[in-house]
């Protein structure tokens, strides 16, 4: 028979702990004997019905990472492994992560945290979303319908989406959500907005979004935040802290779409109004031109008419003048014809010439005994003046 191995106490405890560390487990129970020290948090877990007690230890760092207030009577699920604490030889459960469980505990924690953060003013930071959102940091799980829902409801705006994949349920969710917020805030992605989304769930499933650490990280975000977390009765605390909250992930996408509406909706309206305004100006000027044109045409027509009238008057005047001249010539001709000596001679008048051949126009031109020649219609005759007698005519 082989001789039994002999351990020192310390070696034996180490030996056992090497086995125990493999016994990774999740244990559900109710907290009692809670004691919070700088060195860590000590409590016992017990069942509601059965007897049994598991002493638990939570290191101070892990405790701070929880973002959950612990109290006696709270129902929790702890994850970790068992260990024998060497200095005291005490068996305990080393808690790595802890979640609240059970409707009552969760509601109580929810109400308490809500009251606390509300009094601190964490729900009062409501920054407006920027206009024309282009660069979006999305914090959610890469699996599941939520991210697809968000993307499908986002209009084709040429947005740049950055997904920070994280658990959105369970003990690891809180770390993931906080990391996402911190990552996006310290990144050089120049994000316009951070969108934290998750589908609906029970208070227990959504507890990461009712967590103090997540709430404070949201509040600390320099980049405006939108929380789109489905919920039943209670609005998740994350949603209350975010700058904008929607009841579903798809509605969160519509907020991004809406940031473009000043351009999408107003641009066609403005274009139409501009065209209308300019056409109004043109129409007014066209009217004016038309009026001016008709005035001008009128003036021209008038001018031509007066010109034509003037011209025809001139022609008429010339014609009249010609007529008058012709008439005058005819009259003169008639007059001349009437005044011809031959005609008068034929009518019985005669012309008397003296000896020297001059026409005798007065009695005094000739004396008694002078020889005169008388011209008559058909010839002439010689005569001697017997008497002269002056008569007044």
């Amino acid at each position, binding site marked *: 028979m082989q001789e039994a191995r002999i351990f020192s106490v310390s070696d034996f405890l180490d030996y056992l702990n090497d086995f125990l560390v493999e016994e990774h487990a999740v244990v559900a129970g109710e907290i009692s004997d809670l004691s919070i020290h700088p060195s860590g948090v000590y409590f016992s877990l017990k069942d509601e019905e059965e007897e049994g007690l598991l002493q638990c230890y939570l290191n101070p760092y892990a405790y701070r990472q929880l973002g959950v207030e612990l109290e006696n009577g709270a129902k929790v699920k702890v994850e970790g492994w068992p260990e024998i604490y060497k200095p005291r030889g005490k068996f305990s459960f080393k808690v790595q992560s802890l979640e609240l469980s059970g409707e009552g505990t969760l509601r109580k924690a929810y109400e308490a945290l809500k009251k606390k953060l509300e009094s601190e003013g964490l729900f009062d930071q409501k920054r407006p979303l920027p206009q024309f959102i282009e660069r979006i940091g999305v914090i959610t799980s890469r699996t599941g319908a939520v991210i697809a829902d968000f993307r499908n409801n986002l209009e084709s705006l040429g947005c740049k989406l950055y997904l920070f994949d994280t658990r959105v349920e369970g003990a690891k969710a809180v770390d993931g959500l906080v990391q996402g917020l911190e990552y996006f805030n310290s990144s050089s992605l120049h994000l316009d907005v951070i969108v934290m989304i998750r589908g609906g769930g029970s208070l227990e499933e959504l507890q990461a979004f009712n967590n103090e650490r997540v709430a404070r990280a949201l509040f600390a975000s320099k980049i405006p935040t939108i929380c789109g977390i489905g919920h039943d009765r209670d609005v998740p605390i994350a949603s209350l802290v975010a700058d904008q909250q929607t009841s579903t992930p798809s509605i969160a996408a519509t907020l991004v779409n809406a940031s473009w509406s000043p*351009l999408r909706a107003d641009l066609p309206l*403005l274009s139409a109004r501009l065209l209308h305004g300019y056409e109004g100006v043109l129409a007014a000027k066209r009217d004016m031109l038309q009026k001016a044109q008709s005035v001008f045409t009128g003036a021209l027509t008038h001018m031509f008419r007066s010109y034509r009238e003037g011209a025809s008057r001139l022609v008429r005047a010339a014609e009249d003048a010609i007529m008058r001249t012709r008439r005058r010539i005819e009259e003169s001709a008639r007059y001349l014809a009437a005044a011809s000596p031959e005609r008068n001679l034929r009518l019985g008048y005669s012309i008397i010439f003296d000896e020297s051949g001059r026409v005798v126009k007065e009695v005094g031109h000739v004396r008694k005994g002078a020889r005169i020649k008388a011209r008559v219609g058909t010839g002439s005759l010689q005569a001697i003046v017997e008497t002269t007698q002056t008569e007044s005519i």
Partner: protein
Amino acid sequence: MAKEKKKISNSLKKLEEIVSWFEDQDEVDVEEGLSKMKEGAELIKELKGKLTDAENEFEEIKKELLDTE
């Protein structure tokens, strides 16, 4: 990028001003109207350019890089 957004808002504001200018004037000088119209048309063209039906891009943050940071 913030500058780009500001530019969009400014252009939109300028366009609104031009439109109101047309709507507020009783008597518009055609020359001035034409130059305002040209300016407005330029702005519309520029702003429409921002509204091209561009696909959204999607990228997942590489956690491996994150962990080594």
